[in-house]
């Protein structure tokens, strides 16, 4: 069965001539597996980032003892504790090493599902995506009037959703590399040794955070209707950013229905003709 494209029956209306264009009918946009893995992923990423930053604060630097590290401008400056989770190093480690399984299993379920079910087609980059991304940038910068035509996602969105699993895979692999630098030393060596693997783990986390923050911002700023769609699965294409020509914070809401025109005054019946 195709869960992607089954339109709901058109809404029944008693008024055969509505005064505004009826909204197009909502469609199933996200399979329940996508929705469940999305929200599990949200929780897992928040906890992994928070507990990871708490672990990092036990030694907020990358340098090996007796050396200096080239490439981190904030060596020995802890992350503000309000951004961390787990309260203390041991507690944060327990959260990190428990939640890592949730993150990995959930990620594998998601990737397997989109591979088998075909959703990967909406996410893999294609020829022309770079040009389309540039058009999106121009549109957001008011250098282009109309929203570029898009499929399920716009080109910028596609890039972000494609990059996120890659950043997550990098985070998982570098994480394993610094968890087991002796037992899995080949993996640690692949990332340039423990110090660099720890650095790439941090960078992967930063990438995930940046992509997620932009994602959440854009959801609220251009496509708030997608929140409902990630919960119920239903999405009204008539409210898509393309249909609304929505830029961040512009035209988030469709135009209000215009007030009903005043009823025509009652006319007195024409006088009867007199012969």
């Amino acid at each position, binding site marked *: 069965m195709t869960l992607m494209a089954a339109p709901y029956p058109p809404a029944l209306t008693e008024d055969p001539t509505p005064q505004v264009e009826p909204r197009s009918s909502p469609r199933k946009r996200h399979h329940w597996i996508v929705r469940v893995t999305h929200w599990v992923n949200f929780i897992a990423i928040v906890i992994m980032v928070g507990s990871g930053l708490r672990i990092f604060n*036990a030694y907020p630097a990358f340098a090996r003892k007796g050396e200096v590290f080239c490439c981190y401008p904030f060596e020995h400056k802890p992350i503000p504790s*309000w951004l961390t989770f787990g309260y203390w190093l041991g507690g944060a480690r327990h959260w990190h090493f428990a939640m890592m399984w949730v993150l990995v299993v959930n990620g594998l379920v998601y990737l397997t599902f989109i591979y088998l079910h075909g959703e990967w087609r909406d996410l893999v980059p294609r020829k022309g995506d770079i040009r389309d991304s540039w058009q999106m940038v121009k549109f957001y910068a008011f250098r282009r009037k109309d929203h570029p035509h898009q499929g399920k996602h716009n080109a910028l969105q596609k890039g972000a959703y494609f990059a996120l699993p890659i950043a997550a895979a990098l985070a998982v692999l570098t994480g394993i590399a610094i968890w087991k630098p*002796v037992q899995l030393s080949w993996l640690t060596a692949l990332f340039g040794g423990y110090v660099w693997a720890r650095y790439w783990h941090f960078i992967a986390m930063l990438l995930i955070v940046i992509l997620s923050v932009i994602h959440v911002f854009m959801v609220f700023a251009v496509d708030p209707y997608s929140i409902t769609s990630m919960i119920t699965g239903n999405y009204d294409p008539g409210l898509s950013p393309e249909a609304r020509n929505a830029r961040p914070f512009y035209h988030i809401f469709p135009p209000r229905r215009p007030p009903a025109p005043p009823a025509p005054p009652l006319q007195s019946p024409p006088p009867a003709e007199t012969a």
Partner: protein
Amino acid sequence: MSDDPREFFTINGIDRRDFLIRGSGIISAALLAACNSRGPKAADRLLEYAERKNRGVEAALFRHRSMDVVQAGAHEAGNKLPSYFISPTVPVWDESARGKWALEVNGLVGNPVRLTLDDLHRLPQVSNRVNHYCVEGWTAVETWTGVPFAELARFVRADPSARFVDFQSFDDDYHESWDIESAMHRQTVVAYGLDGTLLEPAHGAPARVYSPVKLGYKNTKYLTKIVFMPQMNGGYWSDQGYEWYGGV
């Protein structure tokens, strides 16, 4: 369709603007509540379960042939190697009060012994230039000289039923117990030398256990006793909530 023009924009009486404001409020409140918290108490049992399972994963990943290799060009930490102990001051063995220091090795062994520092020096000796992996995230390269633990186990004729080893110290009640496999790893030594000199009190004199296959806190300093055991015996930091296995 009702006549209320707002109906077009509302779901259950909440219009989208309300939804956005309430939604972002709820999410921010939840995130703020989580800030630097321990997390829900109900999660403790799940976390303990995960730690027990991870212990099995770590033991399954363990290979005697996996060796710690110091990266080319890495500098030795030297005096930058942090020093720590749980006593209020650096623990120093007081010979006048406690007699000559000796390391007791007993438990499930055929030949329990008391080894003086001279005895340790006479046992086979290795020097390993290896990384120190601290639970905090830093590493330090040092050269540790001492008796390979496996040689010591052979010397005391450790029983195969000894699946765990407890390393005890005179630094208050500090001790940490290990799985026997990690203890028998070739890079695990009962160390009395650091960077070519005898161990100093700051780093665990007269002798300490040292292995790159365990996190720093598992490597008991100021050794007094090594006990071969049939079951694990927790440890100073393990009992306070750090992972008992603490493998690297």
